[in-house]
């Protein structure tokens, strides 16, 4: 979406750097936003900072909306492997790093999930439009 694809999403996916200091920072931020784990029994379990150092994925609820913390993507890549395939997006004081468009397409096309596959044609079309603009 931040690349310019007109798609709607209900959650935000992040891939955090898996070191203890960053996990603590993330946990402190999420604690201030009423975080709990989304799970079938709806028990409002709290994550622990050490959860962010593992290999899995956490589906969280916060007062700002749903947040998926992906310690690793489905293909095993984590922050260290992905950082070189990101671009910085800036808008005023906001500065975030997001997957570059080719990597995002690669990831969405390979998850095996229908909802990700549906976005791939839109991302491919966006890539074509951006290439035309740069030509």
């Amino acid at each position: 979406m931040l690349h310019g694809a007109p798609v709607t999403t209900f959650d935000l996916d992040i891939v955090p750097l898996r070191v203890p200091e960053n996990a603590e920072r993330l946990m402190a931020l999420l604690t201030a936003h009423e975080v709990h784990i989304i799970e079938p029994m709806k028990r409002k379990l709290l994550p622990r900072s050490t959860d962010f150092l593992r290999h899995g994925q956490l589906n969280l609820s916060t007062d700002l909306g749903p947040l998926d913390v992906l310690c690793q993507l489905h293909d095993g890549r984590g922050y260290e492997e992905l950082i070189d395939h990101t671009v910085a997006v800036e808008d005023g004081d906001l500065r975030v790093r997001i997957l570059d468009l080719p990597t995002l397409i690669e990831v969405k096309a390979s998850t095996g999930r229908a909802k990700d596959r549906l976005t791939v044609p839109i991302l491919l079309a966006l890539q074509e439009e951006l290439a035309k603009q740069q030509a």
Partner: protein
Amino acid sequence: MEFTEREAAVREAIRRTDPELLAAADEVDRATLAYSASLTPLERLRAATDNAHALARFSRVPPTSR
């Protein structure tokens, strides 16, 4: 239109594994893409959030109450 080496490699991988996705890209509404591209990242985020909230307001109606 020219793609970077990396872009071309990803497109070629998709062409080999799932060519329907490339064909479907031709059907994407380019006017909507152009509109989205005209927005700043924050505006894109706000538009997507507004859309998500608007969709969330709709609820399923049981067939008997139609």
